[in-house]
């Protein structure tokens, strides 16, 4: 009963304190509502993908088109460096670099996928998604390739069937030709084109003819010689007559000459006579030979007449053979065309490696985060959480305590502007955070052996900007509440909300687009981005100007809000803490 009374009293006390009831009861509900709105969505990711290729091919374009499906936003980068920088800067979640004129079957070609491994809660999802997309496309391509091969096989089968029937027909035709040829050979074999060589002594006839010819030639030579001699003599007579005139001595000489001519003509006559005998003998022999030949020819004619019928059959058979061969040739020509078609179709199959058909193209995952251990990967997040909680909770509590403490009244009595105390609190917290970060950096460097110290200057500037924003938010919260526990709960709640919505636990990309867009301005998201880029990529501050400007704006806005709130409270006499304290 007493316990119930205690509970009842506690609840009354709690509810009657409006701020406490809001912070303790409503704030967690509000946070939960926000988180539910942010994450109660189907498992899908709003991924931003940068792509680059010096020469986009159909295949690379089809990959890009595939990635464009669904909730992905694909941005074409102008260079590989820009593509990678987009990932480093958080503009894109991943970068895909296609080889120039990428095509299936080039084993040396693969898609390079650049990932930021420090986004460890997203990197696996990206890998998974990209892998699925690529596998899907790969499967489609594999299907296409296999379909092409199967279509070619079908074509070969069809053409082969046609060629087979043509081959059978050609074979039949050839068989017929062979039969006809065999028959023709048989006929030709039975034909007799010979005669009795022994009955015709051709050699003897040849000898006789040769002899007659020789004899005749000799006669002709001799006649010619005599005739030449006669001509010479008559020429000499003519010359003498012309030279000397007709006198007595000349007459003697003329007689001698005439006698000599007579003797030559006699010799000629004898010679012709001898030769005529020899020729007659030879001609008789030739005549005999010719008779034998004539007989032989007559015999051949007779034999040819007898073979004429056989020849007709052989010709007919050979013509049939020719016809059969011609038909076979046409058939074989058709088969040749078919084979050329098959070869042409086979030539179109460029991808023949089984591994290439199964996996038409390959991908290569490249981490842009130069770290070795898991601790290194999550280091920016750890550091960010440290900064978030220290910078938000401590100034908030300190601010409440300062105002609620007895010394708070004395502060108000001093002729010091409020800004001095607020700036004092800001700088105190800043020193605390910087000291913590330096301590963490030293531990990281010397105990965890992660090289961080050389990045410390850039890192500290990032820490300065981000912690300034959180400290100012904390100071503002500290001014909103009058009780330390309310302020603490509110600061922790806010820090938790920023943490949950930052992508440190669940990826931002899993949120609805509106939440994703708003969360780009979440100071913790910006802090993580700045730390990550400073630690992993040594990104200069100039390249992070947008983030730094937003963080500075947060600081300025909450600084101004704090003073506006103080002024409003002063004027509305709601300095309840002071009043309560002083009115005792």
């Amino acid at each position, binding site marked *: 009963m007493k316990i119930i009374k205690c509970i009842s009293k506690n609840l009354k006390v709690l509810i009657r304190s409006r701020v406490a009831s809001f912070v303790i009861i409503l704030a967690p509900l509000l946070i939960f509502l926000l988180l539910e709105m942010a994450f109660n969505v189907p498992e899908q990711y709003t991924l931003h993908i940068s792509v680059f290729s010096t020469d986009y091919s159909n295949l690379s374009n089809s990959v890009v088109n595939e990635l464009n499906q669904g909730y992905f936003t694909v941005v074409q980068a102008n260079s590989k460096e820009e593509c990678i920088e987009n990932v480093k800067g958080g503009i894109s979640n991943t970068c895909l670099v296609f080889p120039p004129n990428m095509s299936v079957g080039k084993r040396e070609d693969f898609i390079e996928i650049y990932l930021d491994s420090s986004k460890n809660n997203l990197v696996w999802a990206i890998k998974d998604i990209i892998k699925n997309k690529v596998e899907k496309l790969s499967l489609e391509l594999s299907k296409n390739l296999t379909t092409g091969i199967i279509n070619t096989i079908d074509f070969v089968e069809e053409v082969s069937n046609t060629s087979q029937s043509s081959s059978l027909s050609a074979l039949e035709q050839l068989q017929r030709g062979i039969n006809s040829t065999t028959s023709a050979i048989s006929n030709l074999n039975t034909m007799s084109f010979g005669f009795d060589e022994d009955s015709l002594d051709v050699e003897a006839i040849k000898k006789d003819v040769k002899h007659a010819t020789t004899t005749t030639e000799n006669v002709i030579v001799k006649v010619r010689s005599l005739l030449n001699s006669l001509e010479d003599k008559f020429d000499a007579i003519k010359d003498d007559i012309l030279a000397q005139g007709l006198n007595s001595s000349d007459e003697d000489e003329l007689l001698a000459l005439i006698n000599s001519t007579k003797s030559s003509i006699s010799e000629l006559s004898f010679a012709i006579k001898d030769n005529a005998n020899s020729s007659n003998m030879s001609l008789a022999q030739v005549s005999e030979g010719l008779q034998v030949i004539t007989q032989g020819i007559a015999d051949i004619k007779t034999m040819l007449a007898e073979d004429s019928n056989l020849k007709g059959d052989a010709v007919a058979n050979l013509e049939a053979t020719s016809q059969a061969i011609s038909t076979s040739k046409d058939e074989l020509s058709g088969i040749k065309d078919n084979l050329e078609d098959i070869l042409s179709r086979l030539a179109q199959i460029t991808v023949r490696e089984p591994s290439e058909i199964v996996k038409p193209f390959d991908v290569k995952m490249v981490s842009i985060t130069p770290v070795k251990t898991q601790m290194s990967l999550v280091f920016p997040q750890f550091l960010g959480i440290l900064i978030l909680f220290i910078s938000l909770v401590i100034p908030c509590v300190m601010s409440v305590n300062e105002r609620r*403490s*007895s*010394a708070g*009244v*004395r502060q108000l*009595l001093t*002729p010091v502007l409020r800004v001095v105390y607020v700036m004092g609190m800001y700088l105190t917290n800043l020193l605390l955070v910087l000291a913590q970060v330096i301590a963490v950096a030293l531990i990281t460097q010397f105990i965890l052996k992660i090289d961080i110290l050389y990045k410390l200057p850039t890192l500290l500037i990032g820490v300065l900007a981000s912690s300034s924003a959180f400290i100012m938010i904390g100071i503002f919260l500290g001014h909103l509440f009058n009780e330390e526990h309310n302020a603490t709960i509110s600061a922790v709640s806010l820090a938790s909300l920023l943490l949950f919505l930052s992508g440190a636990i669940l990826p931002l990309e899993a949120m609805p687009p509106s939440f994703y867009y708003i969360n780009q301005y979440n100071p913790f998201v910006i802090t993580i981005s700045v730390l990550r880029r400073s630690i992993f990529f040594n990104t200069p501050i100039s390249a992070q100007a947008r983030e730094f400007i937003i963080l500075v704006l947060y600081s300025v806005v909450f600084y101004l809000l704090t003073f506006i709130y103080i002024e409003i409270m002063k004027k509305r006499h709601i300095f309840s803490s002071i009043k309560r*304290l002083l009115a005792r």
Partner: protein
Amino acid sequence: MNTENVIEVKGLSVSFGKQRVIHGLSLEVRHKEIFGITGVSGVGKTTLLNAIVGLIQPDRGEINYSSIILGEKHPRPLKLRKHLRLIKNYIGYSTQDPSFYEELTPIENLDFFGAMYSVPRRIRQKNISILLELMGLREVGNKIAKSLSGGMRKRLDIACALIHNPKILFLDEPTSDLDPILRGRVWSVVKRVNQLGTTVVVSSHFLNEIEQLCSRIGILHNGRIIRVVSNKKQTKKGHVWLEVVIKPKQYEQLIGELLKNKSLNPENINYDKKSELLLVRVSHEGKFKELIHSTAKKLGVSITSIKRTGPLKEIFMQTVQ
């Protein structure tokens, strides 16, 4: 503005929401005096002091500080509302609850607040030394403040209010929650500060104590100073005021019996039902004590205490009634 006055308050009104605490209040504080403000609990003494030092903004009215304390640079009186930051340099305020950093030592607290008032380091060190001595805190100068006793804390708070050598020191209930010995020590410190030339404005509901300390006392009632009592005037009359404490519900019977004695004037007997306080002004203290003891014995009334008191209490009771 009267040349003797260092503070003039005219038509001051302060309210918290719908609750009007101060309503058209006017008062004057003179140079180097100890001005007391008294009134029943919750009447608005603290609110009045807070308004005068500029901790809260009044709804209406004017609070002016004289050039006497502001120095030659400011020959004319300055309005608090317009010159709050400047005036803060010349006033010190010790609130009812000590106001300093519990985690710092007295020396650190004094050094910090001295710096906030832009007191040069050398003078600050000197002031710290003087104040520690004056407040009897030298031995605990380096102890953490939250470990100090109630009296020490109160004295440290007054020291913090004095670190910048203010011209006017405001004290709000400086002896509440303190035992009589400590109260005596605090008042002696206040006297000493006043003797050094500081005007003191003190609020307290310990009438006896402020009556002994203050040169003038303002009685705050219904949001206004309804009467300012000068201590010198009260002491001229030479009567003795006795405060009689008996068990509740027996006062009326006792008063009725006392009044039967003709030597007592009914005007000299004052009874406040709320506070159950009986004040009697007598010319012969011994005779009255004999009378009241015999009467009480006769009626069977037990007298808890009879003690001497000042005239303020009677004036206060009359005024408030």
